């Protein structure tokens, strides 16, 4: 318990911004009938994007030449935002499904 508490405290210090950690948000993108909703989101470094897949199909959130998150049918998947900048993602299985994440620097 105590060790865990210290670890959290130390991690917060190492990141240099305990307040930012406390404010880290989870931003939800819903997938419904072959579309990311909302298609464009804004996030900050430290936030987590959570994809909630209401479809009966497997989808991905894929950044060309970058990361990929596999989102199971009727399931969820998430990914922490680690880098500032703007990235476009799409579903590799259904390339007409597109989304964009604009990430502000911490």
């Amino acid at each position: 318990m105590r060790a865990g508490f210290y670890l959290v405290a130390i991690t917060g210090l190492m990141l240099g911004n305990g307040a930012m950690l406390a404010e880290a948000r989870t931003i939800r993108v819903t997938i419904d009938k072959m579309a990311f909703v909302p298609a464009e989101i804004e996030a900050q470094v430290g936030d987590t994007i959570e994809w909630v897949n209401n479809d009966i199909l497997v989808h991905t959130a894929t950044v060309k030449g970058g990361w990929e998150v596999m989102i199971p049918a009727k399931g969820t998947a998430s990914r922490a935002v680690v880098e500032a900048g703007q990235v476009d993602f799409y579903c590799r299985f259904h390339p007409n499904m597109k989304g964009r994440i604009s990430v502000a620097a911490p």
Partner: protein
Amino acid sequence: MGVKSKQLPRHAWKEEVTVNIRPMTALVTLCMLAFSPPVQAADKPTDPQIAHIAYTAGVIDVENARLAISKSGNKAVVSFAEDMVRDHEAVNTQALDLVKKLKVTPEDNDTSKALARAADDERAKLAKLDGASFDKAYVDNEVAYHKQVNGALETLLIPSASNAELKALLETGLKIFQGHQQHAEHVAATLK
């Protein structure tokens, strides 16, 4: 579910007739279904028939996709075909779950039979092609096939479905297959 039609005698004429026409018999059938206004209420397919038609249409696309996966060396074509297998199997699994839940037995019918027969012809033609000509023929057929299936869903199958859950699944299917059509068109454009 019996999608392979064995009762050939009734349609023995077809062997000669289809040799020189475009491999679109299934599409023509669906097209006629979709665009001729129902004269009598009897023209409207019943829910058990709709379930059978939709399931058959899915099985056909999976079989075509399996052929493409085994024959094509084109990465975009193979991954499109893999997408078709994954999605149509998912939709058909959902359809089977639904008919089980609703205690509906899908009922074979002339539309399903015509679809299955035409698809067999199409696949036989595709099987004879290789390389780029196979890729193009497969993808072009996928574009046309999805277009026509979507047309039939929109104008006939969805409006005819009386069970709300079946209607909702068909509507979800339509969204998915519209996506497939766009995907197929995109792949087709890269083959030109």
